[in-house]
């Protein structure tokens, strides 16, 4: 009867929501909006790290910018009581990601690190993931991109350059996570320690508004940030369970 038991055990496993009972890591980013100034150092850091193309004025005018992260700006009030609120927006690596289910060819899925992974090679360019993403953080290669020589010498060899017809997005700098994991393994450690890996945006943030780490480690910086009473997620009502947690901006008259 072990066959049946085995079948039932597997059935239960495969019927469990989320499938992974336990992620190996649960990479999480927190964004303290009270620290964020919207200076966009992160945007350039991301562009440099991830080989995001330079698209040109015309493409941007047609709404085809490719930077994987952006600062959204929202004005509140009218002159003179006017405020500008900025919020960095990048892939939220949702645990219940709408984009993942819609891909017909499994080009996007959830990996063991709790990351929303995008397989460029597998993508056939239906763009439905971009439609399903409520955060609008998936960017499509409408054409092949070109780097005027010798700008291409800057390209990061750890990250591929994407061809036309492929969707791309923030990866939480998965190449850095990989390297940190390899380094940990080389050191004979089982796990990556807090602070050993930072995506390019987090690394560069001059106001230290971004914090990155493993949520499963209760001692990590992000775990402490998650306990903050200001923590919230954007578009929480959509129940996407993002891995990017924002800390509310503090305003004197709020």
């Amino acid at each position, binding site marked *: 009867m072990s066959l049946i038991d085995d079948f039932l055990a597997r059935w239960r496993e495969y019927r469990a929501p989320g499938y992974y009972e336990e992620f190996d890591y649960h990479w999480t980013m927190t964004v303290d909006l009270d620290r964020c100034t919207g200076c966009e150092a992160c945007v350039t850091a991301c562009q440099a790290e991830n080989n995001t193309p330079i698209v040109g004025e015309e*493409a941007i005018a*047609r*709404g*085809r*910018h490719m930077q994987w992260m*952006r600062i*959204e*700006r*929202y004005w509140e009030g009218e002159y003179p009581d006017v405020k500008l609120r900025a919020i960095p*927006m990048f892939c939220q690596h949702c645990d219940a990601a*709408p984009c993942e*289910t*819609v*891909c*017909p*060819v*499994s080009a996007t899925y959830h990996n063991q690190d709790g990351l929303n992974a995008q397989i460029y090679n*597998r*993508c*056939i*360019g*239906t*763009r*439905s993931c*971009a*439609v*399903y993403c*409520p*955060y*609008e953080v998936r*960017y*499509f*290669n*409408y*054409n*092949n991109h070109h780097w005027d020589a010798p700008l291409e010498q800057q390209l990061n060899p750890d990250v591929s350059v994407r061809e*036309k*017809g*492929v*969707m791309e997005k923030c990866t939480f700098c998965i190449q850095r996570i990989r390297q940190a994991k390899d380094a940990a393994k080389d050191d004979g450690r089982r796990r990556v320690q807090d602070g050993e890996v930072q995506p390019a945006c987090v690394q560069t943030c001059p106001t230290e508004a971004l914090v990155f780490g493993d949520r499963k480690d209760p001692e990590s910086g992000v775990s402490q940030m998650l306990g903050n009473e200001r923590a919230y997620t954007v*578009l929480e009502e*959509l129940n996407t369970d993002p891995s990017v947690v924002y800390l509310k901006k503090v305003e004197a008259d709020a």
Partner: protein
Amino acid sequence: MRRHEDIKFADVNNDIVRSLVETGPRYYVTLAIAVLITIACFFFPWFYQLYYGIGAAGMNHPTVWGTYLASFIFWIGLSHSGTLLSCVLHITNSEWRKAMYRSAEAMTLFSLMVAAMMVMVHVGRPWFIHWALPYPNQMELWPNFRSPLMFDVMAITTYLTGSSIFIYMGSIPDFAAVRDRTTGWRHHMYVLLSLGWRGTDTEWHRLGWAYTFLAVLIIPLAVSVHSIVSWDFAMSIVPSLHQTIFAPYFVVGAIYSGTAGIVTVMFVLRKYMNFEHYITKVHFDNLGKLLLALSLIWTYINVVEVFTGWYSNDSAELESLRYKLFGFYAPLYWEMILFCAVAPLLLISKRFRTSFVPMLILSIAINIGMYTERFLIVGTSLSRQYLPDSWGVYVPSLVEISILVGSIAMFCTLFLIFVKIFPSVSIYEVKETLPAPDEGKTQWQEATH
């Protein structure tokens, strides 16, 4: 001009075989034009787009879907009346179906083919489109059956298979009839197509059963196909797309535009294939009634959509609605309302329903309106989503417009080829509506005179 009841069995064979065999220069000119437009407006821009990337179209960051997908829904929708209506009428044993169902089914088939082409045009890397099929491979990966797009793949494959089989099954006796009257390559072709059909009582019996089963299977299939197409949108959480009403909305819209499409095709066949005595005012009258009913249901669902959107008082829903009704694309919205909700009210008049040219104009207007509807679903909803910072406007490019025109030409090309291979009016079913050589009038004739 002969009256319907004067037609003899032999005349039917003669007329229809003539429509297949006798081809005038006008046909060749039309076919040549259609093929040329298909190549120039569809394939040439498409190849350019393959070379350049989807950027040849006007899609952009918030609006990643555009006219290609709108065309896809449109063609799928147009496919909906043919086989579905044919099945429903077959099961309910409607006599008036018999003269028109073949071409209606052909419309289904060809719009599905064009829709499949639109998928190829739509995706970023069509050269990998086969990855959406489960076939043995070395990539250690099969498609994702949780995806609404995979539902589409399955549904459209099934629907295309089902429709092809249905139209073919219904044509076997006719192929046999044509086989006997043709020579040369045509004869050989029809020998193969007719499968050696003789018309024995056993064959007729088996065909009758199989045909009915197919009809029973295809009705729920057709309903599911457009429901599934609607779920491509409704399964997302885009404001104004994430709606439970979308499946019936799409199905009704599909049948609506498909029925209008049948009217157009009927008009053309009647006029240019000399089928005046087979396709009559009765057909237009009945189709007109159907159109009227569908237009009212369609209008109702549209009103419900606006009402629920407004009643939700949700910022995202409201903005989406406002943008659709009064935004950049508002003229298109009101054009759609005019063509699909207001103009069809003319169908209340029997005189209108039985006038051929006004019906043609109305049917084309309805399909323009329905195309607009599909365009607005894609264009306005994606432009106004949750994060206002990511709002944008999408304007189709010349390549897209050209491909749309080309896809219509492609449909026409396929249809033109069809009318020379398939008897576009069913020989044996038309005969069923005629008095048998040793009988009086049929029931149907009595009812209509």
